[in-house]
């Protein structure tokens, strides 16, 4: 896609400059205190709360005209909300967009980290629904804030331990809590726990929760440890299959129901990753000769 002019009816990247400065200050403090949730005066965006307003504000505060933006939801570029957010920035910032992870300088995501390793010079922006990892254990902000201040994380370990006692395994499959740089317990947003190891990255990772008015960050090369126990170590998991289109055995898979007789197939959730492999000639169980 070619770069275009942004819609002159709006400021570059939609937000007014004062709002951007406020978000930018929050982002810098977030990088300085990895994993800590910085309160910010989230603005009302022209899209609903819960649909990526935090990520959109962070992206808007970061974009330059030279950027190339990729937006994914569930790993795919063509899911409706990803399309909607991409169109929003095409219109209001006039930036180039791409579906290719390697070509993107800013990637806004909901629920996935791309399969291709991210590199220096890239920024990954997460949309976050509930930024507080302790929220479902303690609904009160006044309490959870104290717990973070005192580094009092016993409650979350008790929860994980009770899982093991009841189910024989930790029953958190996504939004699996992590500890950043040995200090703050952080919610990595609802990514599958398969993606957790990728939180240690060469890229800058920024998290925006609009409705909950929080911004947080993981600088590059920062230690991110998924919470676990010595006798129940953390394991990232995925469907025990290969991709039926590109044959990849290590990517995160979507399960697709193909008929009403129990037929199903598994395909890469990261559509760009899968398409690139197919273009390189990789084939899966259900690839026709004409696939690609």
């Amino acid at each position: 896609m070619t770069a275009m002019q942004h819609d002159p009816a709006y400021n570059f990247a939609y937000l007014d400059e004062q709002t951007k400065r406020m978000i930018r200050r929050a982002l810098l403090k977030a990088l300085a205190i990895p994993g800590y949730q910085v309160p910010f005066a989230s603005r009302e965006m022209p899209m609903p709360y819960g649909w990526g307003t935090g990520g959109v504000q962070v992206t808007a505060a970061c974009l330059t005209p030279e950027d190339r933006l990729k937006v994914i939801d569930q790993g795919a570029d063509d899911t409706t909300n990803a399309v909607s957010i991409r169109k929003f920035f095409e219109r209001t910032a006039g930036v180039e967009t791409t579906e290719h992870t390697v070509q993107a300088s800013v990637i806004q995501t909901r629920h996935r980290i791309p399969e291709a390793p991210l590199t220096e010079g890239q920024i990954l922006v997460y949309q976050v629904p509930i930024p507080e990892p302790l929220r479902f254990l303690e609904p009160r902000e006044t309490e959870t804030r104290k717990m973070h201040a005192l580094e009092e994380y016993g409650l979350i370990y008790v929860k994980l331990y009770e899982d093991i006692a009841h189910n024989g395994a930790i029953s958190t499959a996504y939004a699996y809590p992590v500890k950043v740089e040995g200090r703050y317990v952080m919610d990595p947003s609802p990514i599958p726990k398969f993606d957790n190891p990728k939180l240690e990255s060469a890229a800058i990772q920024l998290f925006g929760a609009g409705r909950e008015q929080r911004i947080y960050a993981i600088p590059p090369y920062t230690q991110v440890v998924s919470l676990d126990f010595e006798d129940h170590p953390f394991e990232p998991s995925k469907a025990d299959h290969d991709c039926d289109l590109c044959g990849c055995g290590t990517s995160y898979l979507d399960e697709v129901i193909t008929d009403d007789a129990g037929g199903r197939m598994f395909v890469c959730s990261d559509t760009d990753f899968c398409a690139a492999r197919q273009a390189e000639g990789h084939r899966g169980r259900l690839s026709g000769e004409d696939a690609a």
Partner: protein
Amino acid sequence: MYVAVKGGERAIDAAHEWLAEERRGDPKVPELSLAQIREQMSLAVNRVMAEGSLYDPDLAALAIKQARGDLIEAIFLIRAYRTTLPRIGHSRPVETSDMRCDRRISATFKDAPGGQVLGPTFDYTHRLLDFELAAEGAAPVAQTGEPQQASTPRITDFLNRDGLIQDEAHGDATPPDMTRQPMEYPADRPLRLQALTRGDEGFVLGMAYSTQRGYGRNHPFVGELRIGAVEVEMEIPELGFDICIGEVTLTECETVNQFMGSKTEPAQFTRGYGLVFGQTERKAISMALVDRALRWQELGEENVGAPAQDEEFVLAHSDNIQATGFLEHIKLPHYVDFQSELELVRKMRRGAQGSMKEAAE
């Protein structure tokens, strides 16, 4: 042969076209004008202005039209628009004592200076469908009286004169602005009142109702309810004095609530306060009750664990734009997370079935 779902963009465009067509409805029926909405759906317009936190009846009418009458959607449109407006300055606090009242009632006194003025109220109408409204008729004309020239004194001021009601602290501090600063708990009263005045009418009503039914009861009387226009003034530094920049219609409710007093303090009434854009009296009364319930700590009352006493619970859940956005977001695809849970449940079932089998053997 399976192909990954494509065409999100086309689907969105088609959906928007269909929406526009449905919004218009049957083209044989004349289109609504904004003036019609503004004049004949004025209470809907008022609610959109109040919860949208933007006083502009024409824009509210446009939002209602665009939202096909879905008021929360209309409030959302107004909020998103409001965010883009530059902040030029601050008005002086409005003086509701100088309100040109269309309606002014007190439940605590039979009569008072300024009088009881019913105004254009649904109270005492019999809720019988008026089938004559279904036909177009001549515009009704109401009888008129002499407008009062003097300002209408406040009922609570009469009580205050005798020390029977607690005086409210005066302060010159600039109140925080919840649209420019992140919410922080505990919140002070100005912040709570801001959240309540733009809070969802249904939510605030429900909270207020719960206090009446015993969940944090605070024995309210409507000391005074007044609806009318007030002038908005702004200080212009270059001029060195205040000028009137316009007029807004407000609904103000002050409740008079029981207070037991203590060994050191004589018994006194206390107040709850509601102030809302437009003619919005259900909301203003509800706001006053919830405000009073949230003041338990400051007034030395017991927290009985009632929802309406719980500041964080009330303030964090009163905003319908936040609530509806988050509620409706569960419509978005979540299949990545679901897949992750699916794998986990399969794995745990395999484990459980394995151990059951072992136990059986």
